[in-house]
């Protein structure tokens, strides 16, 4: 794990990843208590991708992704209070309790959702990038999607259009090996090297370790630089692992309990911490501080969500139209 990053940045990465991890753990608890409902998809184990990639962006840049969206939203700067309130269906939530876990949005931070139809966010991402190009802004759009989404027709239509029109967009594939219970080897021709598909669209593609936040950040920073130079779309396949089931409802009968070990999966948060300690970037004490600070942030978020009022019944009728 090599890097030219300074302590401050590494510490930032650590804080953000830990924030997401603790946030997700809290969601899981609230779900068990019946306070978070519907489908809940946790990002646990994949934190390095959202944090490493989104840290390479400017506030103006667009981020859009799928329903496993808490990590991306928080990494883009969404207030954990507001996110947690949304998951609890409260009026103080990002969508006043009308969107839920799969549909987080934060217009102020250019977090464009939170889309629950597999592959559905990809054409929209092309449109965001098209707008930036049309307006001659130098914004970049990062479109997150999973290995399962690769098999949707929209993946194909979007990569082709983005390439033909040289759109300023980064396609960031989170290959966690599974689409629900279906392993990529069974769903995708060449399931372990999807990045090669990008070349079919004349888009440069690379595969990286999605459990290494520093590596992700370096790679995405490079890609974003090239995109800003007007070089058109880039494609990054981040190999990772989904620790939990697809959703809280998934008993994960389709894989071995010890698969993660078998694959030698290293936890992204521990890895960074060990690296920082090993190279004396930060001390145990500092981590203890960070951990308790993050812990407090999360319990505040939960408290805020629980204390917030439910939406008025009339909210049902608002914003159907602009």
């Amino acid at each position, binding site marked *: 794990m090599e890097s030219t990053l300074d302590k401050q940045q590494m510490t930032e990465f650590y804080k953000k990843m830990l924030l997401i991890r603790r946030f997700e753990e809290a969601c899981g608890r609230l779900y068990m208590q019946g306070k978070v*409902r*519907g*489908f809940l998809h946790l990002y646990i184990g994949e934190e390095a991708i959202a944090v490493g990639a989104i840290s390479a962006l400017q506030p103006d840049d667009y981020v859009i992704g799928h329903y496993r969206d808490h990590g991306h939203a928080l990494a883009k700067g969404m207030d954990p209070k507001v996110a947690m309130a*949304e998951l609890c*269906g*409260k009026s103080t939530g990002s*969508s006043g*309790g*009308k*969107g*839920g*876990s*799969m*549909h987080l949005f934060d217009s102020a931070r250019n977090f464009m959702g939170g*889309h*629950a*139809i*597999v*592959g559905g966010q990809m054409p929209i991402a092309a449109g965001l990038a098209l707008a930036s190009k049309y307006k001659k802004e130098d914004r970049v759009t990062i479109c997150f999607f999973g290995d*399962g*989404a690769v*098999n*949707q*027709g*929209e993946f194909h239509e979007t990569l082709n259009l983005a390439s033909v029109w040289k759109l300023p967009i980064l396609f960031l594939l989170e290959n966690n090996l599974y*689409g*629900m*219970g*279906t392993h990529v080897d*069974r*769903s*995708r021709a060449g399931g372990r090297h999807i990045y090669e598909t990008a070349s079919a669209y004349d888009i440069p593609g690379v595969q990286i370790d999605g459990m290494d936040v520093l590596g992700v950040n370096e790679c995405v920073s490079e890609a974003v630089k090239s995109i800003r130079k007007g070089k058109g779309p880039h494609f990054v396949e981040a190999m990772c692992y989904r620790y939990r089931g697809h959703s809280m409802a*998934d008993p994960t*009968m*389709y894989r071995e309990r010890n698969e993660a070990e078998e694959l030698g999966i290293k936890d992204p948060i521990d890895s960074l911490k060990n690296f920082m300690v090993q190279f004396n970037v930060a001390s145990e004490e500092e981590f203890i501080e960070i951990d308790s600070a993050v812990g407090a942030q999360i319990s505040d978020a939960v408290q805020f969500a629980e204390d917030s009022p*439910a*939406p008025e*019944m009339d*909210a*049902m*009728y608002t914003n*159907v139209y602009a």
Partner: protein
Amino acid sequence: MAEMILREAVAKALREALEDERVFMMGEDIGAYGGAYAVTRGFLDEYGAERIMDTPISESVIVGAGVGSALAGLKPIVELMTINFSLVAIDQIVNHAAKLSYMSDGQFSVPLVIRTVTGGGGQLAATHSQSFENWYASVPGLKVAVPATPYDALGLFRTAMKDDNPILFAEHSLLYGLRGDVPDDWYEIPFGEADIKREGDDITIVAYSRMTHIALEAAAMLEAKGRYAEVVDLRTLRPWDKQTVLQSVRKTNRIVVVEETWRTGGFGGEIASTIQEEAFDDLDGPVARVGGIDVPAPYNGALEAATIPSAQRVIKAIADTYGI
């Protein structure tokens, strides 16, 4: 006579169907995962990967491959995880499956059963809580089944498997756990035959899928008021059983249609206008409709519940329309 939940009735129907070698199943996570709603749990071990085929997340080719293998003489059962996702495959259903018999003037038929899960109520929000059966029911060349009980699900599915046309078979997610009696002896339920789930003389309540149970709830509440509602469960939308509804309304002279999808543009409009066309003089008042509120489904539980027809709303519609 066995008692089982709707999930088990569908699984039973599928196992019966799979006795025919021409039958196989395709869909997302129906195998190793056991089905998103656990309907096909165990099937992969029982029947093997050649017949229980996990697919990529590619609804268009899932349905299209079903159409093609049906053209080639097989009898595929494809599963679309939910009807919300059928929108990415709707072109294959409407412009292909439904058209090939007609466009080939009978040279080909498409004996394809498309199973899918419909309805809201699970706090899954706007993209995951819809009911599009009414759209499919407007398409010549398709048939649409919307069972409300384990008994109906099994009987209708047996009929679907003997039909040589493309059929959309919509199971309501909130009904999978519903218990009901299922005879041990073989029976089938023809399409286009509604079921009178409860008899009554004062008003006819027409419903389908989960709304049948809301209708029964409303009927029970009416009984407390000394009014007797006849609950007609359509069971299939295309074809739909006009005659049974007409007979009932000629007796009750009052009628309300209840459905879960958005009221505006729902199938309730088809039923209501047909009834007033054919039984105008038998009506004590207009045909009433109760449907989903015309908004996308909100995530919040209280809000979502308010968008879905309830027995209370049915009672109110009846009172407002007929003063009973």
